[in-house]
């Protein structure tokens, strides 16, 4: 038997395949009933899932925003202080203002004094302020923004003085901060000496 004839034989067998009588008789009715049953269309399911994802994303954003906001008042040792440091770096990157960090450290000194935090916290804020002033000064010398830094430090010195004028009990701490600010406004040699001292400590 030739190949073509065999193929025809198989075709005959194939064409003899019939759907079961039940399918022929009731298949359409069953399908019609299924088509008439309201089901959520696939697109609706997708939309709902997208909505859920969006909603979860929104909640996450709100939560994150709350955490970031709360972290702005954090002082060294607080659980949210690392969050504050991270957001600072982002702020510097986005704004291009290299003096953001030194401003934040000065605010922390004032906040620690005004909130009457213990000496350990106040001391750490002054130390952080000193480190940041030295670092920023070095960067300013490289980028030629010394004048801008001087103005910033003058403004901070003024703020420290205002705290003293308010009659703060931590006059000594404020004077230390003023000293740091003054040194920051001094020459590069001073800053290198200060850096050396800081490293020695």
């Amino acid at each position, binding site marked *: *038997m030739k*190949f073509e004839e*065999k*193929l025809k*034989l*198989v*075709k*005959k*067998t*194939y*064409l*003899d*395949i*019939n*759907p*079961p009588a039940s*399918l*022929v008789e009731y*298949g*359409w009715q*069953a*399908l*019609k009933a*299924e*088509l*008439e049953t309201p089901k959520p269309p696939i697109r609706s399911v997708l939309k709902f899932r997208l909505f859920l994802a969006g909603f979860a994303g929104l909640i996450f954003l709100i939560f994150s925003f709350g955490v970031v906001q709360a972290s702005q008042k954090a002082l060294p040792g607080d659980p949210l202080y690392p969050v504050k440091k991270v957001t600072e770096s982002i702020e510097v990157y986005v704004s291009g203002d290299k003096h953001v960090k030194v401003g934040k450290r000065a605010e922390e000194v004032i906040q620690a004094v005004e909130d009457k935090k213990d000496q350990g916290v106040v001391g750490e804020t002054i130390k952080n302020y000193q480190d940041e002033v030295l670092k920023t000064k070095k960067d300013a010398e490289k980028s030629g923004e010394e004048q801008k830094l001087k103005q910033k430090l003058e403004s901070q010195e003024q703020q420290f003085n205002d705290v003293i004028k308010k009659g703060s009990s931590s006059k000594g701490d404020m004077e230390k901060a003023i000293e740091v600010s003054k040194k920051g406004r001094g020459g590069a040699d001073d800053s290198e000496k200060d850096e050396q001292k800081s490293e020695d400590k």
Partner: protein
Amino acid sequence: MQSSDIRKLINQAQKGDKDAFGQIYKLYLKKIYRFVYFSVRNKELAEDLTQTTFYKAWISLPKFSVEEGTIQAFLFTIARHLIIDESRKKKEISATSFGEGFEQFLSDDPGPEELAFKQEIKDFVWHALRKLKTSERNIIVLRFFEELEYSEIAQIIGKKEGAIRVMIHRILLKLKGQVEDQ
């Protein structure tokens, strides 16, 4: 039924007329069922996949355009995808089981000639078609059993007409080789 009548039915079904779609269902039920059954060789599964084919066809019908292909090719495309999904679930359906169930489609009381004929078919099915891949078998079925146009098979398989011609030629050579080896 003339192609203009089928176009009319498609048009009505696309507008939401379920009875028109019911006529399309009755028109192509046997073709889709045997195509599915030939691949899955399981009555219940073939019934399920046939019904799912028409269900999906109804859902996708608004996107179908008679300018882009025939309703027959549209239905075979859906059925073929369901068969592929099913074979992925069960891996490739065991080649050794291929051919089971075909006896029931022959006469219940075969005479000696029919028995010989039946044996011939069984031999052919067992020894040649079982060696083809499911996708290759589908192409042979569509072209030589269902007698679809090359353009329709191209629409179903998602390849160009020229590529389908080459594929069919290659599969036939393979099949011939297997038959002649017996």
